């Protein structure tokens, strides 16, 4: 039992095999893609492996502390070169093999021409609790 974060990038990931920007797809292809993502989440809920998922707006900014009594400094919107997260899904599975299997399936979401995107997804383990027995 372990939790994994599947991260989808707007940019910053290695190029997908089917690398065509979404606004160049047909409307039907966009719909099919969204349907695939929803079905994937529903399937994980049904298998008892779904924890959470959210899509993130690309519009964001950097923020940092600027000293006592001063408002935080902001910088943005992001530069075009920044690695940009598009969304995430958290899954709770029996082990890394299953996490990889599911990420592979998610990466097969259809894109331009109805063909799989083959996009690169980032798979990150979440920290668990320390086991009571470790010796």
């Amino acid at each position, binding site marked *: 039992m372990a939790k994994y974060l599947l991260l989808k990038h707007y940019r910053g990931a290695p190029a997908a095999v089917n690398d065509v920007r979404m606004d160049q797809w047909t409307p039907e292809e966009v719909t099919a893609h969204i349907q695939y993502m929803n079905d994937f989440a529903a399937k994980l809920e*049904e298998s*008892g492996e*779904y924890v959470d998922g959210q899509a993130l707006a690309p519009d964001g900014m950097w923020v940092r502390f600027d000293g006592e009594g001063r408002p935080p400094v902001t910088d943005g919107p992001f530069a075009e070169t920044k690695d940009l997260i598009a969304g995430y899904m958290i899954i*709770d599975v*029996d082990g890394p093999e299953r996490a990889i299997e599911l990420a592979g399936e998610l990466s097969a979401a259809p894109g331009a021409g109805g063909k799989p995107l083959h996009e690169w997804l980032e798979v990150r383990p979440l*920290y668990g609790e*320390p086991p*009571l027995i*470790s*010796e």
Partner: protein
Amino acid sequence: MSDSLDEALLRGLVPGVLGVLVRRGADFAAAEDAVQEALVEAVRSWPADPPLDPRGWLVTVAWRRFLDATRSDAARRRREDVVDVEPEPGPVPDVDDSLHLYFLCAHPSLSPSSAVALTLRAVGGLTTRQIAAAYLVPEATMAQRISRAKRTVAGVRLDQPGDVGTVLRVLYLVFNEGYSGDVDLVAEAIRLTRQLAAVMDHPEVAGLLALMLLHSARRPARTAPDGSLVPLASQDRTRWDTAAIAEGVQILQTALSRDRLGEYQAQAAIAALHADARTAEETDWVQIVEWYDELVRLTGSPVVRLNRAVAVGEADGPHAGLAALAELDPSLPRYAAVSAHLHERAGQLSTAARFYAEAAVKATDLAERDHLTRQAARLNTSSGG
């Protein structure tokens, strides 16, 4: 649940009640749902109106719920036939029912997480909400996991006990891999293992119970007030639970006297030797190494060999420990942490610091990572680096 209700007592009745329903002809999944509903009803009504016969009350209410659900089901006609021909059972000992439930819920066709969830619900009587909270997943996800697990074991007959090892592995997982939430999974694992030991006379069941008691005894000393991990050697041993240790040692000795050694007894023996030592320095590492040799023989597990290298380092010195470590695969989990510890003991501080930093990157929980990072920082700053 309510303060005025003895939750452990109530949940201890669950396997027996479920067994009665199944014996009366209810299928497992429907019976389990009905028992859950009866539990909810018990929590609601017992504080104001406690029944004279709690178990009888649960059976009656659960059976009524089962009949209601069955009647409203699409396939009611066929099932009502089953219900109608089923006589009211007389008093039958429910020992076997409990035992079969453990085996069913740990059935090899289930994934570990499904077996854990089903065991906690059907044997432990926890609600889906409680189990979901204990494993930090949404309630809907846990509900699906449990109903899938029920479907998976739907065709399994309740009268065929399997390998007790599968049951013990599930209980071990509950004990060792839960989160620290409202439900104390450590206490729950001990309760379920104790209940199993009461109906199954097996030295490894006793061994696992002893192992759990001996490790949970150290729980008060293993975290500092700020939540950081305190390693065994630095723990305040006056904070160990001596009653749990005494019980664990006694259970273990009885099990060992039967001369059917298994991995849980051997692990418990190691824990008992640690519990025996009033200070870390008094630890009988030579005997601990001997138990690790037994464990290696029993399991062949590389993780056991890794822990054995630590014990060898204590018994015969860090160079002997490093020699034992050199025979193992560096990709093993915690290999770098063990290497760091042994190098530090051998006085090779900069190498140790490097391994602590590497181990911190590979840690699989935050407390361990922070502990290892502090170890690396301690060596790096003390050597002026």
